[in-house]
């Protein structure tokens, strides 16, 4: 009965292998969707505690403040969730399951691209939950703008996920190094993007750095899209920034996974 199986030689195929890697990566999420909701705790805390502060400080009403703040929280989900996803790969590298996939007849780039594509699923689910909760408090989003905004987050997330996996591949079994680098990049990127506090009143150098920070452009585009303005230059810059992050992330990641052993 094994004779039929025995003769088979399987060749790597980028598209098929990416699909199979993606399906495998989605399984834990499908089996245990509550883990996704659980990891929303942090953005919800920001929304619940930072929101009132912002209202008090700006003197604007809640709906206006949410229209400014919620897009930032959505980008934050990507930064914190997707930015940390490399730690899963790192753990699989340490335990041996990554090695097993390297011995399978899979296209190496597929191992990375499939993983990066999977990031879209948690991003979309979590973003919708956050938007749903914010709507209870008076937040309103343009429906098509929301759709486009999710697309923007997805593209940005694929890139950031790929970068996070690259960092895991580069730091190998050194967990402390992964987290050290990750944290020291994520926080400056976050603060220098105007997600939590507007940078308008900040020093000039901060605004200069922010203009090169892809996260700023993604946040501003996200605000424009959720507000229903599709044609603004912020939207264009946001898409360019997200696409750039995705391209650079995938290129760096594919290089890293090819060298993995």
């Amino acid at each position, binding site marked *: 009965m094994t004779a039929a199986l025995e003769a088979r030689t399987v*060749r*790597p195929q980028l598209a098929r292998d990416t699909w*199979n890697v993606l399906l495998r990566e989605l399984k834990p999420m499908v089996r245990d969707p509550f883990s996704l909701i659980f990891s929303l705790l942090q953005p919800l805390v920001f929304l619940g505690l930072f929101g009132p502060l912002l209202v008090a400080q700006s003197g604007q009403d809640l709906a206006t403040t949410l229209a400014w703040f919620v897009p930032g929280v959505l980008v934050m989900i990507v930064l914190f969730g997707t930015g940390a996803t490399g730690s899963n790969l790192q753990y699989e590298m340490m*335990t*041996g399951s990554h090695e*097993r*996939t*390297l011995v399978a007849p899979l296209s190496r780039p597929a191992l990375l691209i499939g993983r990066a594509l999977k990031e879209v699923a948690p991003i979309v689910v979590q973003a919708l939950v956050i938007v749903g909760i914010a709507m209870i408090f008076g937040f309103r989003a343009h429906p098509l703008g929301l759709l486009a905004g999710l697309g923007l987050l997805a593209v940005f997330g694929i890139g950031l996920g790929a970068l996070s996996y690259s960092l895991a591949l580069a730091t190998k079994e050194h967990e402390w190094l992964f987290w050290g680098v990750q944290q020291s990049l994520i926080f400056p990127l976050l603060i220098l993007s105007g997600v939590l506090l507007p940078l308008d009143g900040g020093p000039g150098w901060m605004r200069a750095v922010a203009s090169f920070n892809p996260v700023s452009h993604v946040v501003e585009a996200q605000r424009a899209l959720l507000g229903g303005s599709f044609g603004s230059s912020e939207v264009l810059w946001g898409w360019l920034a997200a696409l750039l992050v995705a391209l650079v992330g995938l290129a760096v990641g594919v290089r890293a996974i090819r060298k993995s052993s």
Partner: protein
Amino acid sequence: MPSDTVISTQSLTKRFTVKKTEVTAVTDLSIDVRRGELVAFLGPNGAGKSTSLRMLTTLIPPTSGGASVAGYDIERDPSGVRSRIGYVGQGSSGSFSQRVRDELLSQGAFYGMGRRERTQRTDELISSLELESFASRTVQQLSGGQKRRLDIALGLVHAPAVLFLDEPSTGLDPQSRANLWEHIVALRARYGTTVFLTTHYLEEADRYAERVMVMDSGRVIADDTAATLKANLAGDAITLTLDEATHLARASSAVERLAGAGAERRDDRTLAFTAPQGSALLPRLLRELDHEGIRVTTATAVPPTLDDVFLALTGRTLRDADKTEPDSPETSNDETRTLEGSTR
């Protein structure tokens, strides 16, 4: 290579550069393994067992030399090799967050198996490795022995021509080890898969392997059945106790004549010596001594272990070699093991 040869290596060599000094992990490995054999690499930590396996499974390229595995050249056609082998590394193959059944199904998909085929095969392996009650648990909820059984199932999903196992039983309690081995032996009998494994447990190599390759400092220093290695290299340890101390000198020279080995005095009436096929020699020796009027009150013959073989080959016992080896990459493996133990 002959049609029934599944692994053939020619002077396979691997050197690593660590902090500008070169370490030769494997030197001139030239071996042939026939279809259906169960071969064990036996050697202390750092001997080069994992490195050999990692070259044969295309994880790392050799520095020089070459090999073909399951009909494909490891360097010219690594994906050919990959599609025809199963590999169970030193760590755990299943991802901590995945369910047992899901991992087996995904693995089937990775090897190009259709939905029906991989479902059938998954069910079959879950039952033959007795994983039924854990099939919908996640890997992190399994015990060490259960994880190892899953690893073997993962290695067998696509019915590989060769299954490589790197220290399959290390870190398991004696009962799980015995259980794991029962499974390995049964699966091999069932599927006829060639099994190539590494171990530093003498008893396992002795008991289960049909062929033992003793490895030390990157070289295979012996390659045969455990029985032949022991008979040729180590010999039985014979102890004779005589009725009278005055006979000791004459008995000693009789031993030297018949066994060709010098006898050691244990006390004033006891002689000890080691001789190849010693137990076969014993009756003749006893007759000879009797003939000379020397009475033997007790005689024991202890068969050798593979540790005696290792001692004869290297001048150290395997246990000592394991202790003295400065095992740099093994430390990370130890970390892996403790990590696996903790759930996350």
